């Protein structure tokens, strides 16, 4: 209680000089008031209300209040407290907050606690220009995110709210960007500001340029631009070249050339991935050497486009994951991809789910797999590999020793593949997960697989749903899988224990402490 009045007094004085330079006639009054204030104070202390700070200060703080009123208030209002009057610091902070947009540089000169207060109060609507490079506080960015989007899962962004804000912001802008219609200035500004914070770009739709927009989707962005810019037969999408060149930290790029949620407004034109688009994209991806993950789904990427893309990103130094799911890649495209993974890349994950790869393409990929030493996850779900392709892939797995997960679901495979796969399961000890769902393996194939699995101790997952391989073998395989899972779990626990022995030491006394008193108590 002794300290605050002093500081108050000081603040008050400075404040007084500030506020009362214009009001000179009242200066004479303050002198007399000071005298009486002392008496007041003594009076107050006599009463035993030592909680009340000096009224002189309060009078100064509140220049509008009358001296006599003050006195009356003090005398009669027992609830009155100086605490109701905001501190100068708070006033200053409020001022700073109010004028933050104009004078934001002051933030760095403030004390940490004041800085925190300011950051708590500034509006989340402030232009990025002001805040982007200045504010690092997670709380502020969290507020921004929450104010803007309903669902915010920060875990998807590495627990970094600022990154989340920038990524989502940029994503939104790009998703709503209509080429040749939208003004790129805003985008460029945002890009410049968020260059340092964006690591991942997940574009779920790219709008085509509006030519006539007779049956265009009901997007406000798209509909308001009714110009006839689409005189070209090819309607190119957003060009990523400048964007990628401006984002040096980008590691993850996920694109979809198509319109989201078109529903009944479907039109082929909305889902056109032009050759130029492909070329531009391929060039920009090839130029961006830090990119690790590249995804391109639902974009009607056909063989030619895949070939263009692969030819550009051949020997890319950083690419670890390639996802070309839900496209229309055929055997030729698969051959290109095979070439890509045949020691022309460092891919770890390859996703070719839902394409039109048949036996020939699968053979190309299998051939590449026998020589490849990096790919660990391969997804070929929903293709038309058939038995030829399945057998080729399985044979390649006999030689490969890096592949850990493979998905061969819904590939129109049958018993012969199962026969080879049982051999694979017996010999290969690196593979951990096999998905064979929706293939008509038949009961014989199931039995063969079961025989193979009985020799295996590593596989923990094997999906055999809708394979018609017989309940008995499925049950047996599930038992083996369960056994393998348990073994793996124990190995993992052992590893954890081996890695963290000091924790035990810390935990021991705690436990002892917790249990001892109870025992003695009893």
């Amino acid at each position, binding site marked *: 209680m002794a300290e605050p009045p002093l500081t108050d007094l000081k603040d008050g004085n400075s404040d007084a000089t500030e506020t009362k330079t214009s009001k000179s006639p009242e200066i004479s009054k303050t002198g007399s008031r000071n005298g009486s204030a002392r008496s007041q104070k003594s009076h107050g202390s006599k009463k035993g209300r030592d909680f009340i700070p000096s009224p002189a200060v309060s009078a100064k703080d509140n220049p509008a209040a009358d001296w006599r009123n003050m006195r009356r208030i003090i005398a009669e209002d027992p609830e009155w407290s100086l605490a109701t009057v905001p501190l100068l610091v708070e006033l200053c902070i409020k001022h700073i907050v109010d004028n933050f947009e104009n004078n934001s540089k002051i933030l760095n000169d403030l004390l940490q606690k004041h800085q925190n207060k300011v950051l708590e109060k500034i509006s989340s609507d402030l232009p990025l220009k002001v805040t982007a490079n200045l504010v690092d506080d997670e709380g502020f960015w969290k507020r921004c995110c929450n104010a803007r989007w309903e669902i915010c899962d920060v875990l998807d962004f590495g627990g970094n709210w600022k990154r989340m804000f920038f990524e989502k912001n940029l994503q939104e802008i790009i998703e709503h960007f209509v080429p040749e219609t939208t003004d790129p200035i805003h985008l460029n500004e945002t890009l410049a500001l968020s260059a340092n914070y964006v690591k991942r770009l997940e574009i779920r739709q790219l709008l085509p340029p509006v030519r006539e927009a007779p049956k265009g989707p009901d997007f406000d962005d798209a509909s308001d631009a009714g110009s006839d810019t689409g005189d070209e037969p090819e309607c190119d999408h957003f060009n990523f070249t400048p964007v990628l060149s401006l984002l040096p930290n980008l590691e993850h790029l996920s694109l979809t050339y198509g319109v989201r949620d078109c*529903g009944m407004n479907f039109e082929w034109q909305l889902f056109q991935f032009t050759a130029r688009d492909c070329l531009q994209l391929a060039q920009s991806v090839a130029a961006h050497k830090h990119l690790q993950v590249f995804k391109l*789904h639902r974009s009607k990427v056909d063989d030619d486009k895949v070939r263009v893309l692969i030819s550009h990103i051949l020997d890319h130094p950083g690419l670890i994951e390639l996802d070309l*799911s839900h496209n229309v890649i055929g055997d030729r495209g698969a051959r290109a991809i095979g070439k890509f993974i045949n020691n022309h890349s460092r891919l770890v994950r390859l996703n070719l789910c*839902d394409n039109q790869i048949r036996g020939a393409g699968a053979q190309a990929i299998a051939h590449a797999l026998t020589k490849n030493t990096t790919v660990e996850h391969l997804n070929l779900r929903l293709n038309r590999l058939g038995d030829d392709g399945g057998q080729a892939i399985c044979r390649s797995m006999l030689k490969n020793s890096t592949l850990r997960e493979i998905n061969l679901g819904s590939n129109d495979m049958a018993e012969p593949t199962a026969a080879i796969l049982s051999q694979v399961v017996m010999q290969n000890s690196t593979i951990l997960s096999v998905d064979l*769902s929706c293939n008509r393996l038949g009961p014989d194939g199931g039995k063969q697989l079961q025989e193979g699995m009985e020799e295996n101790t590593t596989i923990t997952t094997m999906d055999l749903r809708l394979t018609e391989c017989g309940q008995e073998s499925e049950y047996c395989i599930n038992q083996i899988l369960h056994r393998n899972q348990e073994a793996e779990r124990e190995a993992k626990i052992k590893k954890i224990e081996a890695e963290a022995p000091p924790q*035990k030491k810390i*935990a021991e006394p705690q436990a002892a402490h917790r249990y001892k008193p*109870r025992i003695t108590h009893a």
Partner: protein
Amino acid sequence: MSSSGEEEEVGPSVDSNDKEERIAARRLRINKRIEALKRDPNDPGDSKEIKEELSKSRKQIEESRLRLTKLRKDGFELVSNIRVAGDARESIRRGDEEESKRLRRERLEQEAKSGAERFEEITKKWESALQKEVPQSLHEMLMQQKTSCDSMIDEKNKLINDFQLDLKNKDDLYVKDLKKMAEDVDLMIERMNEQIKNLKKAQREELEQDERAFVAERNELLEQQKKKWDERMTYRRDKEIEYMKNREKRVEEYEQMLQHLRVQDAEEYNMVKIRLETDVQILEQQLQQMRATYQLNQEKLEYNFQVLKKRDEENAITKAQQKRKITRMQDVLNGLRIKLTKQEKQYRDENSQLTEDYKRIAEQFRDLQKKSKHFMATDAKKFADVWCMNEEECKEILNSILQCDTVVHEQQLGLQWESPDLGFVENVGPLRIHEETKSGVSATQVLHEVMSQAGSQAIEEVGEEGGNDDKQRTNIFTKISAHTVKSVLELLCDESGFLVEKKLEKLLQPLEKDEQSLMKLDAIFTALGVETEEDIHKLTTYFMHLIERMERAAEENKKDEGTEKDELEKTSTEGVEDVDAEIQELTGGGVDDEPPREKTTKDSVHLIHPNEVLKALRAFVDDHKKPTKEKGHKSQFRIATLEYRDPSEDSEYWAKYTNTHSGVKERVWDGLVEGLEKYSECLQSRSNLINETDALRQQNAELRMLLHQYVNSKVNTELEIPPTRVLQLEMNPQY
């Protein structure tokens, strides 16, 4: 639809991963806690129970884990089933699509083919139509063409309609698919939610169960501990009560004892008090008496004190005098001390001087010895030379004499000459005296023999054989049997170790026993001055019994008297024989003491007791001190004279030369000399006469010559009367 399905599929797996991690963490924590409990040192006795409980709780955990994993797996399957169903449907659709596409293509191709055929037909007809010139037929033809074209178009249109119908169907299908997709998504979401709910619930339940298990376990543990605690407490309480009872009992006992003691002590105290009081009275009386005596004594002492005072004064005076005297004496003492030191110094100087003198003299003596040795050598040489010369001379003379004798005998006397014994003539140089023959066998040799022989062979045999082999050996073994000697020596060796030097003993340690004793005896003999066989004998005799020693003493006296070796030998042998006889007597008489060792101790029986060895040795040394000393002197002298020569035979030797000429021969020679002298006188006179005639003859010749001279001289011519004439005249008268 499938893409969204896939995305959804990822969601729960991440969730489940998370949960797994959480479970793992919790399990770890529980394990740690359990371990901590297990390691708790406060209750090691309950470890077994805890272990059982542990297994229970762990089982519970395991069970719940398994149940949860199963639940999760089932849930995942349930959710992903939709995806799988979609996939299956899609793949079937694709198959159908392919089929229908193929059909469509076939149909199109067929259509195209048929269309082309018709078109061909129509075009052909056009050609035939051109040939037709009848307008009606042409019209008919045209109409026909038109109908055929229409039919073709109709067909096409029909196809188009079909396809459009298909398209519409497809559109409917698309809408249906969209709906289906939305439904699927909804279903999936529903299922996921349900799953999440279920999982949450299940996990909560499991957690509760786990906790319940743990709580139960803990409660059991607590109960056990409490029970134990109570047991201990009751045990303790019983003990305490017992102890208390014991203590009370003891306290009572002690109190009784105390009371008893107190009564006893009071009685004692009273008795003692009475006695002490009487004592006090007696002592007071005595005190009075003592006081009286004290008074008396005091007076006496005062008197004495006076007397002593006086004496003290006197003493002080005398003390002063004495002090003065002391100082004086001190001065004298100092003076004497100085004198003493001076004297000491003087004597030291003198001593050093004397030692120097002694050294010098010793040097001189050594020089002298050297000189004397040299001179002796030269003397000996000279002696030998002189001897040789004389001998030669003698031999020459002898030879000449002998020749003369032969001549005399053979020529003058005409007798057969027989040569006398001339063996001694062969000797050249001074006569040699053979020491070996004279001095006895050395003591060490004897030692060796004795010691080496004693072990293996019977004594008497050895003696006989030795007697055959060597005279020397017989000497000793005839005197005293070898065994006796050996036993004596052994005794000596054992008892007189003090005579052996320590160093030697050390050196001897590694050797064999016989060797050792040999060397020891050697050393002892040198110490005792025993050198020859004789000495050993003497020594041995000392070790015999006292009576024998007496006899021996007499014999020794004889020995001392006897100068000749033979005599000594004889006497000693006699003595030995006596001893042997005695020994034999004694042994033959039967030594009752040691019948079993009769044979072996036959000779050693008569030896003195080991304790008396020292006495015997002393006696030996005393008796032989002088002779040994003389001997030592002699030996010293002998060293000086290099080698001792016995001149006794010299005269004999030389006498042999003279003896060659016996008295008869001399007389013969004397007679011969006489005759010859006479003969020589005769011859002398004859020679004198011859000489006279010769002189006269010479005189005549000389005179003749003179006369001739005178006659022939010129003077004669000158003279009136020449002498020649005269002479002739003179001569003539004569003749």
